[in-house]
């Protein structure tokens, strides 16, 4: 690794620049006092204050949160039970293979295909149940549908690390099945369930493509709001909102990395 060609380093910096420069540009523009256009008109934090009182932005933020939490709860419960049912049952090989395929399908299918499949499903279901009209319900159901797989994959990987010996030890000490599930399996599984739920929640917050197809006129999430505002003409408040989302995303990642580093540093576990 000692003698890399000289051009490697500048090319890498170009790559990093392509990743970061646009985000930086929006960050700078969010402090620009000019209302229309990008001419620098002095430093201001007014857009952040205006953003915090903008009803459309607040409503979209609330919807994002609501859809994220509701879909995550559904997906975490269903996904965890699915992982448990698959792992702790001696299913025949063909069933196991089929289940693996089914769980991986939403992960590898392009977003837009999932989106139109869900749109079709809701159109058919709407014939019987009016709740499936485009709106918050369809957003929640759609997000939960692709989240289940991610939760199951994360919980399964955690389940695989839990040995049988503790369960058998508990059985030897006369624990009944309920006690084994609630007091032996569940506590050990908790980190996996929480990790799966967090992953599902972030995917929901981040989703644009599926939401774009299944949402209705009065259920806008933050990514949808930004997309729509590009169409209508951008206001500096959108710069401020984007900057906050970018900063929030980065802070969240740093926090997770920091917690992981701290856990790894601990001598036990």
């Amino acid at each position, binding site marked *: 690794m000692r003698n890399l060609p000289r051009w490697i380093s500048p090319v890498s910096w170009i790559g990093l620049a392509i*990743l970061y420069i646009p985000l930086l540009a929006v960050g700078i523009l969010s402090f620009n006092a000019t209302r229309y256009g990008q001419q620098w008109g002095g430093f201001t934090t007014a857009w952040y204050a205006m953003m915090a009182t903008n009803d459309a932005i607040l409503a979209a933020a609330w919807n994002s949160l609501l859809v994220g939490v509701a879909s995550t709860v559904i997906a975490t419960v269903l996904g965890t*039970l699915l992982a*448990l*049912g698959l792992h702790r049952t001696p299913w025949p090989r063909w069933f196991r293979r089929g289940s693996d395929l089914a769980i991986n399908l939403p992960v590898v299918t392009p977003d837009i295909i999932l989106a*139109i499949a869900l749109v079709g499903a809701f159109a058919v279901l709407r014939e019987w149940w009016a709740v499936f009209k485009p709106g918050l319900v369809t957003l929640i159901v759609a997000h939960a549908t692709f989240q*289940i797989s991610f939760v199951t994959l994360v919980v399964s990987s955690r389940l695989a690390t839990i040995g049988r010996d503790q369960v058998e030890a508990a059985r030897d000490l006369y624990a009944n099945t309920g006690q084994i599930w609630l007091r032996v399996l569940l506590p050990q599984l908790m980190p996996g369930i929480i990790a799966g739920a967090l992953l599902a929640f972030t995917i929901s917050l981040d989703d644009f493509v599926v939401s774009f*197809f299944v949402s209705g006129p009065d259920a806008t999430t933050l990514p949808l709001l930004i997309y729509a505002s590009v169409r209508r003409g951008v206001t500096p408040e959108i710069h401020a909102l984007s900057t906050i989302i970018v900063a929030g995303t*980065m802070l969240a990642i740093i926090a997770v990395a920091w917690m992981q580093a701290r856990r790894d540093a601990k001598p036990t576990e």
Partner: protein
Amino acid sequence: MASHLVVDGYLTTRPRLYGRGGLLIAGAFLWMGLFLFAPLGGLAGLAFAQRGEYGGVEWIFSWANLTRLAGWDEFGFSWSHLTILWRSVWLATVTTLLCLLLGFPMAFWIAAKRPAQRPLLLALVMVPSCVNLVIRTYAWQQFLGSQMPAAWLAQSLGLVPEGAALYPTVTAVYLGMVSCMLPFTVLPLYTSVERLDWSLVEAARDLHAGRWRTFRHGILAQCMPGLLAATILTFIPALGMFVISDMLGGAKFLLVGNLIQQQFGSMNDWPFGAMAGLFLVLASLVALWGLRIVSEREAPHHGARR
């Protein structure tokens, strides 16, 4: 039949375990069956149905959507749809190549740093991929705006007219695509580069292999698994993209993704949209299959080491 077995130190029977397991998995599989598997199957059927008079769907089998996608409609032949399909495949291919050309040096660059710095740099590359795609694309719009440094430079060089923005252009689409996909190219490449066996590279040099042959057989062959993973992770999402082309390419720069979105949106022709979706799935599968052949061809010569 009722053969007993011991699970968790507990005497039970297979049917009883299946009953419990079935209950546990029923919820998720019913949910996914209703909202995902059945609709995906329905989509394949929908592709061969017809648009009804008022925008609904008429379930009459016909090849019309397929022939229409290939260019023939009631007004005769036109290249418009084929151009869109070809543009999607071409854009995904070039994006993948650009990402590999940028990502490979970056992988080496990170791997050559001190061990303590590597995770940090890798995180630096991955973090933007966690930022919402719409925001990143919108950020490109702002960066390429008419009053920003990049546009000034292009204006003073006479590349664009005075006062013009740098989007919507094809270049803008490529910039957006590369910056969107690059993290997913670097990550698998880095894992391959990090595990490189440099003694093989030195052996190639000792045997007086030229620079290219050292690279091809000493380095590239070892990185094949990472290279394939990077290609898959870049090419397939690029193929289904519609946000970046929509926001940076303008109304004339349509991809399959945009075509699908139009048919399910303003055009209200779901069967035709489903046919375009079917093309997208098939193209992805063909790409996967092609890459698998490549990896199998490479495997017998170079696979023994790992």
